């Protein structure tokens, strides 16, 4: 865990204040047209207005819901499939190479395919999110299972553990660090694809909202949306980091 010193905290806050000041100076000096680039006060005002009475709150909830649903779907399918493929050496030999071949394919390239099948619908967006977030979890689970310490497998043989016990007590915990890291990556991907999907399919949410704001040159609303998206990403990854630290307590001292 990182040590949080007072000095670090003060310097950090000072840096943030400086950043906002520079932002303000740039916009006040009209280095960029204020139509395109709002200052911090106008962004803040749009944020407060949008969250207190405007549509922003509803859109935020929509985007979060989409992101979480797709992510959960991907996690469930990815870990289950990964465990099934990863536990068997034979399944790995047949299936893993094709998965590796597909991995560099950008998830967003599947969007047109998803549109072709599902149209511009909420389902389409959900499928795209789940598909994109699936890969890191699937591959991490397969690799995590495959990378189990061979010595532990021998221990399980000597102790006479059943196959199910080997999966549950040895393979899954030893794959846990990789799986948890992939869950975090998957959440990042889910948020990105939720925004892209909303932009493309015009489903209600922050993605559609910021695109509309930019088209009608409402730049404070646009920036307010971006701030919220950053906050969602930040909170999500922080929560998963905390979960990670809890679940991987046993690693803490060896690192």
């Amino acid at each position, binding site marked *: 865990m990182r040590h949080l010193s007072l000095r670090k905290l003060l310097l950090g806050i000072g*840096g943030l204040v400086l950043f906002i000041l520079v932002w303000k100076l740039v916009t006040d000096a009209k280095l960029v047209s204020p139509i395109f680039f709002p200052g911090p006060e106008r962004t803040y005002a749009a944020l407060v207005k949008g969250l207190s009475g405007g549509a922003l709150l509803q859109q935020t909830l929509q985007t979060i819901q989409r992101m979480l649903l797709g992510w959960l779907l991907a996690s469930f399918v990815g870990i289950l499939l990964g465990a099934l493929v990863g536990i068997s050496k034979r399944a790995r030999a047949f299936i893993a*190479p094709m998965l590796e071949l597909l991995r560099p394919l950008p998830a967003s390239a*599947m969007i047109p395919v998803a549109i*072709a099948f599902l149209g511009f619908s909420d389902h389409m967006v959900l499928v795209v999110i789940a598909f994109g977030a699936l890969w890191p979890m699937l591959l991490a689970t397969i690799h995590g299972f495959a990378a189990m310490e061979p010595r532990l497998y021998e221990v399980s043989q000597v102790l006479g553990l059943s196959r199910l016990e080997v999966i549950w007590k040895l393979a899954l915990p030893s794959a846990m660090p990789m799986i948890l890291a992939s869950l975090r990556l998957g959440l990042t991907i889910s948020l990105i694809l939720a925004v892209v999907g909303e932009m493309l399919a015009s489903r209600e949410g922050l993605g559609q909202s910021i695109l509309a704001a930019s*088209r009608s040159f409402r730049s404070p609303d646009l920036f307010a949306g971006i701030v919220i*998206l950053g906050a969602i990403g930040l909170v999500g*990854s922080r929560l998963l980091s905390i979960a990670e630290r809890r679940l991987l307590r046993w690693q803490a001292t060896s690192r």
Partner: protein
Amino acid sequence: MSAAALLKSGWRAALLPVALVVVAQVAATVSHLESDSLASPFDIARAFVSVIADGSLLRATADTLKAAAVGCVLGVGGGSFLGIVLGLSRIADDALDLTIELLRPIPVVALIPVVMMLLGFGVEMEIVIIALGLLWPAVVLARAAVKEVEPRLMEVSNMLQLSFIARLTKIVLPAILPQLFMSLKLAAGYGLVVAVTVEITANPLGLGYGIMMAQQALRPAEMFAYLIWIGAIGWLVSAALNAAQRNFFPAFVKGEGR
């Protein structure tokens, strides 16, 4: 591994993709497929040949790769520079850490509307978004790499009273070169993803736009031809960079594998 064993495992690896293609073709032939969303492998191959013949595929590929490459160089270059500065100066690091932690989670696609408003459509807008998307990972990797440079080497450079520039070029850069290359490798893959995403979402050029247009025109064979081509490009880029890494930094690759 003996040649026979390699052949054996290669055969296993190829079985599933080949079987999928054959099954798809048989199913399409038997059902006399006429669809706006599906196409038989044979039709896909024919569409592939035709988009190559009329030059549209190669033009789109060149556009996408150019944007990804320039964005990659700008993003990784700028990010690495910032990361090195932060790694060397504790004050700068402490002062900017909080701000960076707050800016980093902003999904890069959220910047599409902003940059679009400022620059309009075109290759510049795409390059800027790619560069911004690759900036933070490069900062983080370079900063971590600098902090892991052997402290003895830093002490040596202090004892010799090297100037900042000399310290950078004689000690730090050579020491973190392998990590910088890894950063570039990761960025190249991600840069391609961002490029295609921007093209699909907004920018009317490149492979992403091509695949989107094929879908909108209800030409599924062409759409799948683009999809497979995009996958192949992604795979080739990552394979080429992996090979380069193995060639130039063999020791580092071994360490990474552990």
